[in-house]
């Protein structure tokens, strides 16, 4: 199944792209999508001290299961305001 992983801030800067398309097995988790991105862009490991995850624009746990056309985001520690 195809999913998109969005990168922001320090992750986007380090990877050089804002979005990664992945083809993952059915039932793959958000953690698996994140790991696939980190595998493709090793510079991202350690880029942020801790990541949060979002699935279809809401925070989720890394064990959340994905479905076709889902939008995942890797969220570095936020610093608005």
């Amino acid at each position: 199944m195809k999913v998109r992983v969005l990168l922001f801030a320090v992750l986007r800067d380090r990877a050089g792209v804002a979005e990664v398309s992945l083809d993952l097995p059915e039932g793959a988790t958000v953690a698996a999508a994140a790991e696939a991105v980190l595998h493709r862009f090793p510079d991202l490991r350690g880029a942020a001290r801790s990541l949060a995850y979002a699935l279809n624009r809401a925070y989720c746990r890394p064990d959340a299961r994905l479905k076709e056309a889902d939008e995942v985001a890797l969220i570095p520690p936020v610093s608005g305001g």
Partner: protein
Amino acid sequence: MQTRPAQLTDRDAWLRLRRARHGDLVALIDFSPWEDALPEFWGDPAAGGIDVFIGTTRAETHADGRELVALDYEAYPEMALSQMRDLARRVRERWPVVRLALLHRVGRVAVGQPSVVVAVASPHRAEAFEACRWLIDTLKAEVPIWKKEVWADGSGTWVEGAVPEARGAGDAG
């Protein structure tokens, strides 16, 4: 590349939003002047007080002597807006808010300039102060917006802030 929602650059949509006589003012803004919209926003007869918080870019000198010239703000726009609208809902579970504004700048905000405006109109001042404080504190802890420090030599460093938690649908606000 992601596209940004219309609220960011559509001045006509912005003007319609700020002229609305009812409803909250929640937006990500990347053009100026934007904080000038606020006086049009007031005037609800149910309110006895309005508390306004304005966050600005503070001057800073790096340990190595570099001067800060600006903060560059980036958002996950669709999610930031939906989270901000959810803050507008959650704040009303705790305090009697008549109307509120949550405006956050995206893009470059120079030293001394405003980056975020949180305003709350409520029947009494105690509620307005508390709700406004809660809104800015929670926005800073949860909304997917990031800032990069831009130094005078052109270098930049992303600020590492708060790690948001995944809240379940049944969690208390």
